[in-house]
């Protein structure tokens, strides 16, 4: 199997899991409203699309929005070691998320699957 072992998920507030300080949590909401969050988890890629080992992973790009066809917000995560990320500062509503892997040349992977959640 090429897939890396699943990381331990942080399914509650990030602070309960410890922050690496290098991009595993979105910036806090500065709007003063309720701060809902969504916790994303994924299986990290171990290979490039040509079958070679992925040795230069530099992070992830989390892309989300309120419509499946309009994912208009991007967060760059610069820690290649994580496989869980908390998107914080969200308002009530439906959110759709996808994630791309990024190597140290800035080359992005194709999109992951898209997931959604209703926050109330």
């Amino acid at each position, binding site marked *: *199997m*090429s*897939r890396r072992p699943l990381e331990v998920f942080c*399914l509650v507030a990030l602070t309960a899991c410890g922050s690496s300080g290098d991009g595993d949590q979105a910036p806090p909401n500065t709007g003063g409203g309720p701060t809902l969050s*969504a*916790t*994303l*988890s*994924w*299986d*990290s*890629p*171990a*290979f*490039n*699309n*040509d*079958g*070679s080992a*992925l040795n230069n*992973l530099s992070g*992830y790009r989390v892309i989300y929005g309120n419509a499946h066809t309009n994912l208009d917000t991007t967060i760059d995560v610069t820690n290649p070691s994580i*496989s869980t990320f908390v998107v914080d500062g969200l308002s009530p509503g439906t*959110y759709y*998320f*996808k*994630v*791309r*892997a*990024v*190597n140290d040349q800035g*080359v*992005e*992977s*194709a*999109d*992951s*699957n*898209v*997931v*959604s*959640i209703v926050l109330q």
Partner: protein
Amino acid sequence: MYRYVTILAVVLLSVFLATERASAQVFPLKVSADGRHIVGQDDQPFFINGDTAWSLIGQVSKEDAELYLRDCAANGFNSVVVTLVEGYFADNAPANFYGVQPFTTANDFTTPNEAYFEHADWVINKAAELGLQLIVAPNYLGCCDDGWLEALTNNNSVADARWYGEWIGERYKDFPNLIYVWGNDLNPSSVRDKIRAMAEGVDSRDQNHLHTYHASAENSALDQWEASESWLDINITYTYQPVQQKSLEDYNRSPFLPFFLFESQYENDFLGAQPEQVRKQAYTAVLTGANGHHYGSWPIWHMNGKPNDDQVDWKDTLGYEGRIDMKHVKELFESRDWHTLVPDQGHQLVTSGYGSGDSFVAAALTGDSATAIVYLPRRTTISLDLGQISGDSKTGWWFNPRDGSAVEIGTLAGSGSMSFTPSSGDDWVMVIDDASRDFRAPGEVTAVVRPNPPENLRVE
């Protein structure tokens, strides 16, 4: 003046081409809006450059399946033919490598065994991870008591066949990298209704994937089924004869379905095909209108399964010369507008020396007339009417299908007839471009190595 152009770097880069267009953006494949081609979800033409490993799911371990699939990706293949449920050729057939049976009741298609299909799913997903399309046979019937024909005939009703199709469709509808192929080495004859029931059953649950039909040799899908069959999306060519005969027949059909060369002589198989033969088949197919081709070789096609007379381990044949050469087919055609190629059926382009049968010189011109591509299976002199190619001056190339290198002939002036003879007795491809278009060297590729995407994204 002759100038040798070394494109070693390009050749090295080319191993990445198979998965350059990330599978998440391309699969599942579909038929183009004009009904002439197979395209990805990005609506770009998809050049099928396939290998054949019928027994991949049934015969080998996960580790060996992954080894094989990685080798395919590294050698420029983007498609593989496999049997979903192996009925005969695998050593443990119908059980897989691990001894797991596909059906909990023998020969009863309404009793699929979850454990068997979980293994199949793993192989399919591994292929997707590597950017490989799988052409999957859910019910390989076989030509000669080497498939599920007897079980379909005697143990399963039309309703059972429909049930199995629906089950397959429900299970695989969300897998991105599949095309269904029905029949397999068999004209439908007495089981036509049951085959239709299976295919329609899949179609009732899975509208995401293309279907085709693999008939007996010298029969294309459209020789056995009407294009109006609701489930039939694409045509495939299956011939052991000089490929241009059947390929042009498929190209000229009306009604038409996009087609590719699905099976011809396998390298080192029972007809003893050598590298020259498999190269000829591939280039000739595309130059006579095919949307790509599938290569095959012994013993990779059954991975040392039955008949058990192999003298060599399939892993030791991954480097067969003809197999390695197949990446250059894709490199060449993807360096030009291959999907617009119009076969030179009237010999307006190659006006003399075009031969026939095994010595046939296949030629085609892109839709904008900016590029002519000619495959010469052996050393012969041909005459070209340069006036068929656009531009006041042309750039000519000899492309070597054995190593992917290109030799620039130089600038060819005028629009009259000109004769050409390859410098050696090997097969060669001639490419002549409109010089004003400044095309890159034939076979030169641009490729980007990308990380695979994260998988199994979840949110809470």
